[in-house]
């Protein structure tokens, strides 16, 4: 396998982008990545999109976006594994470059979520759960994570305040990210007093509905070296699955797919949790970040709540988690999220993260998750 490097990244301001269509958002973002890489042609492209069919009534978007990006007739592939679609787009792009099949690949993700109303968006997101045995019973997405949260609180003594502190931390980080959807601070009290969605989770425990895209250009490391780019290598990738119905898991407080994906990525990169300088994780709900930090092995099983309370995962902590603001503050256009994590880690490793720069960041990790944990994609990046 060839070594693979990220040579270009692109992301625009996320939010409720009423004036922009899916294709506009995507092309604008992909062009930034091409400009950043200093190239205008690619050999192949991957697009993570969870549900363009339900959100904008358009399938077959890979060809559409290749066309609007001016890249016809390159092979373009849309990939879907719910909210982990973006991470999977990078993994498939990585395989294509590492194998020698292609040299320059665009790994990207996009979701345009505000062209439909709240009920339809709730429905679209709900399709990531088991429609026949979870959705049919009236459960919602926040509801599934609420079930996990309650079980985690019962089993490990995780507190309501600890959940809130995840949101407070991520909003604090997002304040320094000009591309974040919600650039404001929140307090623990605000989270605890916000509207109840699915007990014990409130609205400020939930990531928002967002329009946005993110893009990364990857190529062989040797080619990147010749181009004189700062060498940010993808040194590990992992991808695993679990039951999409949480009731079918042996321990619903444990994210086995994330654990398995991380295990693969650590082994490939020859790294251990203590070698990682920063992590972008899939905090679609506050409880998710707590469970993910446990599954990635950066804290002990059951200690995710205590860790956030002790500041371990804060910007100044031992291992900063979600310096970008995470899904909570930056926004969560589902298909784009996994690539936005790679954009943030690449910025950090290049030393271009501005006010939220982690000092001497050399090794970064991304963890992107589908549904309530039924799929997970993990990458490890390193500055050479």
């Amino acid at each position: 396998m060839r070594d693979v490097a990220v040579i270009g990244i692109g992301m625009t301001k996320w939010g409720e982008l009423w004036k922009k269509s899916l294709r506009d958002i995507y092309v604008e973002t992909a062009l930034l990545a091409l400009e950043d890489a200093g190239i205008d042609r690619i050999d192949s492209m991957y697009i993570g999109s969870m549900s363009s069919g339900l959100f904008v009534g358009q399938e077959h978007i890979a060809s559409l976006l290749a066309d609007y990006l001016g890249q016809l007739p390159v092979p373009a592939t849309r990939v879907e594994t719910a909210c982990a679609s973006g991470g999977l787009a990078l993994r498939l792009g990585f395989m294509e470059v590492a194998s020698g099949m292609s040299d320059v690949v665009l790994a990207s993700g996009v979701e345009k979520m505000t062209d439909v109303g709240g009920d339809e968006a709730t429905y679209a997101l709900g399709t990531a759960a088991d429609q026949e045995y979870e959705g049919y019973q009236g459960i919602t997405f926040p509801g599934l994570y609420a079930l996990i949260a309650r079980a985690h609180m019962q089993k490990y003594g995780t507190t309501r305040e600890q959940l809130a502190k995840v949101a407070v931390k991520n909003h604090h980080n997002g304040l320094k990210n000009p591309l974040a959807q919600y650039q404001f601070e929140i307090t623990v009290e605000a989270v605890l007093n916000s509207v109840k969605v699915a007990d014990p989770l409130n609205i400020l425990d939930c990531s928002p509905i967002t329009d946005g895209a993110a893009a990364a250009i990857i190529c062989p490391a040797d080619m990147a070296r010749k181009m004189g780019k700062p060498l940010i290598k993808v040194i590990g990738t992992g991808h695993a699955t679990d039951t999409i119905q949480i009731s079918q898991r042996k321990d619903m407080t444990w994210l086995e797919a994330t654990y398995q994906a991380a295990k693969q990525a650590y082994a490939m990169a020859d790294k251990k949790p203590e070698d990682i300088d920063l992590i972008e994780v899939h905090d679609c709900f506050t409880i998710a970040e707590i469970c993910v930090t446990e599954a990635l092995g950066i804290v002990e099983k059951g200690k995710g709540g205590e860790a956030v309370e002790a500041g371990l995962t804060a910007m100044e902590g031992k291992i900063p988690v979600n310096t970008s603001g995470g899904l909570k503050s930056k926004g969560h256009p589902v298909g784009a999220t996994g690539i936005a994590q790679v954009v943030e880690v690449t910025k950090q490793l290049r030393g271009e993260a501005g006010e939220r720069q982690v000092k001497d960041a050399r090794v970064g990790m991304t963890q992107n998750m589908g549904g309530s944990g039924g799929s997970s994609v993990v990458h490890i990046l390193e500055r050479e």
Partner: protein
Amino acid sequence: MSTPSRYWREIPQRYRLEANKCNRCKLIFFPPRLLCPECKNRDLEKTKLAEKGEVITYTIIRVPPAQFSDQAPYAVGIIELKDGVNLTGQIVDCAFDDIKIGMKVKLEFRKLFEQGHAGILCYGYKFVPD
């Protein structure tokens, strides 16, 4: 809207609580599958779910999906049945404050929701205090 066949083919498990028992590892699982999720064996027999169990986690849904909007707020839990099967369902006929992890419940056949104004009535199981 889906055709009625999507609903109709789930009736054995939703109405009659049909589950599978693996003839090799003896695991009982629900919903039915073509192979045992534990040992991958295909020699399975039909069995009926145990109708009693206890709550292992729960939530109160305050922001419901559209077809449940007239019911919110309502409780949904994951219940571990006496045969070891876990399943997700609403917990009804009790105050939210009375729902606790470990609470004993039993399955009952109920209407779950209506598929739109002229759509079919969708039935299945819910949990009530035992």
